[in-house]
């Protein structure tokens, strides 16, 4: 068996570049959506994309608690501990840019700011791939507060599940800076469903589920959510959601976990891929 080695410095550099980019440059999809929008505050949203690009100020003051999803070949080792690489990248980007330190070290008592926006949240998945893919979300706390877990009845039908999601977005969607991207995790355990819902948010806008039944479900929920007319800024004009993605997993006979996560209209997400720089025989 061969061990493949990924260079920590090279991975860190790529991450730094992408983390800075997503915070200050709107992607093409978002830019087109904002340019097509004519409604309350549309002048400010259009101007925002230009000013962020020109000044290096972030598109949103909530520059997030960064969440990483790392897919690595099972025989890959990193030249430094993975979490250290990811946290170093975050630390460097957030301390050298006019971003906000939005992380506190402990949730309940002191809530002291860590003053470098670390730690990031890290999920690691071992696969049979030969390289490493790091997906990440830069998502604000406002949209994170809209995350919801339903432990539905295993005998619930499709329509009941659709209603759960639609009612949740109807009640709370306006608080997450719509138009939203909606990620739905189904199955697994409670915690697995929530991770799947986040993974669903890392998919590209036009990707549809490989299983045609789930693809149809994504489309149906997408149509229903846009009928809510929540609109840009929650002020009733324009689309309510950009996309709906489902990720599912096997689950227990007694369970049907349904997790909903949302991302805001800026969709600050990225993907970094890196090849091992050396291999070594075991």
């Amino acid at each position, binding site marked *: 068996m061969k061990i493949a080695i990924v260079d920590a410095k090279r991975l860190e550099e790529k991450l730094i570049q992408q983390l800075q980019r997503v915070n200050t440059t709107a992607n093409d999809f978002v830019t087109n959506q904002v340019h097509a929008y004519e409604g309350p505050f549309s002048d400010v949203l259009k101007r925002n994309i230009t000013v962020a690009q020109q000044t290096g100020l972030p598109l949103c003051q*909530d520059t997030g608690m960064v969440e990483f999803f790392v897919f690595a070949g099972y025989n890959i080792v990193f030249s430094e501990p993975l979490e250290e690489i990811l946290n170093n990248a975050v630390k460097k980007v957030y301390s050298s*840019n006019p971003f906000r*330190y939005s992380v506190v070290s402990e949730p309940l008592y002191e809530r002291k*700011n860590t003053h470098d926006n670390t730690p990031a949240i890290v999920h690691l998945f071992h696969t049979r791939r030969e390289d490493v893919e790091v997906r990440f979300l830069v998502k604000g706390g406002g949209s994170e507060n809209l995350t919801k877990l339903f432990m539905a009845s295993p005998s619930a039908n499709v329509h009941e599940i659709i209603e759960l999601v639609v009612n949740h977005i109807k009640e709370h969607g*306006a608080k997450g800076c719509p138009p939203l991207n909606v990620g739905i995790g189904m199955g697994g355990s409670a915690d697995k469903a929530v991770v799947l819902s986040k993974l669903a948010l890392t998919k590209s806008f036009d990707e549809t589920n490989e299983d045609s039944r789930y693809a149809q479900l994504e489309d149906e929920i997408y149509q229903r959510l846009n009928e809510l007319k929540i609109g840009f800024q929650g002020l009733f004009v324009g689309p309510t959601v950009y996309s709906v993605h489902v990720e599912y997993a096997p689950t227990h006979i007694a369970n049907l976990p349904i997790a909903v996560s949302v991302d805001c209209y800026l969709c600050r997400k990225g993907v970094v891929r890196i090849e091992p720089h050396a291999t070594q025989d075991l």
Partner: protein
Amino acid sequence: MNLTQLKIFERVDYTGEFLIMRDAAQKRIETLLRKNQSLPFSLSNQIVFYAGPTKSSNNRVAIGPTTSERMDRYLKMLFELGVIATVGKGKRTEMARELCRQYRRLYFVAPSGAAAALSEHLRKLEIIAFEDLGPEAVYRVQVENFPLIVATDFDGNDIFSVGSYRF
């Protein structure tokens, strides 16, 4: 700006002053009041902007509203301290709308996720209290033509209750 005449859905480009504070600062104010201690600044006749700025670059910071609903638990306290209006984002609770009506106070929404553009409307920004809270400290800021929309007016009318396009 004559606050009494503003109606919901109205766009206002506001020039004047905001006090910036969010969750942690208001929690601290509540604690100080409970211990009968005095506040290090006055809230009388102030407009409170629920926000937390970024760090600065070339003397500019990015700023934007945070979710107002989280601040509803402190709204009565702010009105009792003399705050005349609040600025944030999103729908608030029924209790907040009722407080606006009862105290005859306004709630504005500011554009969310537009922090770079809003930086152009900031003039002087200074920390006035609770510096240890970092981005959650209390700041005073002078703003020029800062874009706002009236979300709840003096009569407790609320755009999120109307729930449809009225611009």
